[in-house]
């Protein structure tokens, strides 16, 4: 006698086999396989939090003060210690007073505008440096002028130190390019030596969105020449 139960099981197996065959042929992983692979990948990857996160706005319309303030909160919650906000249009530097007011009220943040200290909190969790075009090549020109007054040879270390001391510029571990335009818009060039880039259509200001960016950073393989 033919067992109906066995026929059903066989039919299900055949359909499953056919789906897998088609997926393999087309190069797609079925949704459940993608989720399983993602979980396995995450289990094997240690989450690395970038100590210094940089944000480079490539489109003017994407700069929103409320989003920026929310991002600062998310950075504090994630454990990021330093945030550089580069805006080649100069909008954020123009709004530095508003950012300062909010920092005073809500965030435990040390705030810098183009390298100058604007607001300092003794118990700060985050250092924020708002950067304009002036901190790009122009800052390097200023560093060159300073170093040319010395009698000693100019070295890589001296340039890094001058930029850090005068303009509070240091190397970000991770840079988010906000917008679809694939350029760095003159972001301080000296500090992008081994910075990892990620392009995002909008600012990942919520904790969840920032976490997924940090997750992407954790998967990056950093070799520094080796």
């Amino acid at each position, binding site marked *: 006698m033919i067992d109906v139960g066995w026929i059903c099981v066989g039919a299900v197996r055949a359909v499953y086999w056919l789906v897998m065959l088609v997926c393999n042929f087309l190069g797609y992983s079925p949704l459940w396989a993608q989720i399983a692979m993602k979980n396995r990948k995450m289990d094997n990857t240690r989450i690395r939090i970038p100590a210094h996160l940089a944000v480079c706005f490539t489109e003017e319309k994407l700069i929103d003060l409320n989003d920026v303030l929310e991002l600062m909160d998310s950075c504090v919650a994630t454990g990021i210690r330093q945030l550089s906000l580069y805006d*080649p249009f100069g909008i954020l530097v123009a709004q530095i007073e508003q950012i300062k007011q909010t920092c005073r009220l809500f965030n435990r943040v040390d705030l810098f505008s183009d390298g100058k200290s604007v607001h300092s909190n003794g118990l700060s969790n985050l250092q924020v440096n708002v950067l304009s*075009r002036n901190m790009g*090549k122009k800052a390097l020109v200023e560093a060159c002028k300073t170093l040319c007054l010395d009698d000693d040879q*100019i070295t890589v270390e001296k340039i890094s130190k001058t930029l850090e001391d005068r303009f509070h510029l240091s190397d970000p571990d991770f840079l988010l390019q906000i917008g679809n335009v694939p350029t*760095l818009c003159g972001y301080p060039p000296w500090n992008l030596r081994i910075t990892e880039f990620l392009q995002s259509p909008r600012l990942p200001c919520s904790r969840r969105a920032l976490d997924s960016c940090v997750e992407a950073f954790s998967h990056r393989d950093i070799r*520094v020449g*080796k």
Partner: protein
Amino acid sequence: MANNLTGEEEAGWFVAQQAQPWWQWLLRRFITSGPVPRHVAFVMDGNRRFAKTKLLGSVVKGHEKGFEQLAKILDWCNRFGIHEITVYAFSIENFKRSDEEVNGLMRLAEEKFQKLLNETEKLDEKRIRFCFYGNRTLLSDRLQKLMSDIEKRTEKFNRGRLNVCMPYTSRDEISRSFETIRKQVKEGKVDVNDINESMIDACLDSGGGGTTPDLFIRTSGEHRLSDFLMWQAADTHVYFDDVLWPEFGYYNLCKAILNYQYYRRTVEKLVSLKLEADDGPTSSNKWQMEINGNEATLIASKS
């Protein structure tokens, strides 16, 4: 393209100018109907991973494959009308790699540079100028001599320009440029207040007639600059491709140029913002480096 090459050409710098397959010709005609970048910079990354995944046995074999791919890409770029190409051949940081790999790479470079000098007819026919960027004092005397000979042999050529960065890092290049300026200041040839972006540009390795890249391409899925042309590419279109360098084919190059064409106007607008902001009194001075024998002098001209 690869199957059109003879063994001799496959190992050399110039591939045969044969007819392209119809689909490449069609794609080229379509793409060249729009603006094409004049200068493209390549980070040739992924040779080692290619050697490992294809089980070539040694990473140096991967670098050899990478060089073969470079020769093909030079030919494709030439057909597209790309006038200047800069390639990141060897980073100063790469000296940290195993002795076997570093020595293998140096041997490969010596072999290829010697081959280039021997290809007299091809050099005269193509008329491409070869320049080397980087800190050459870190290389062997023989390699340094070969590089100087190539530069001297091709210095008058003007149909194209290939800049080979070896051993190079952008920070090293910028710091050497600063040091050149400092010496000029100390000798009283230049005033500190005259220092501007143009002066730093003139003192970089690219100062001798090189231009800033219009398109920066990095292969192998890594999304970073790795200390390559950081000054020159500060406002450039940056394009990342997931394929390994030896697998970077004609289709990938076309995709990169199409991407450049799509964003060209937007990137240009962003650069014009910078130029408006730079409208200062000292920034209008344009500088050029003139070298007479061992003496370098900065020459100013009002723009």
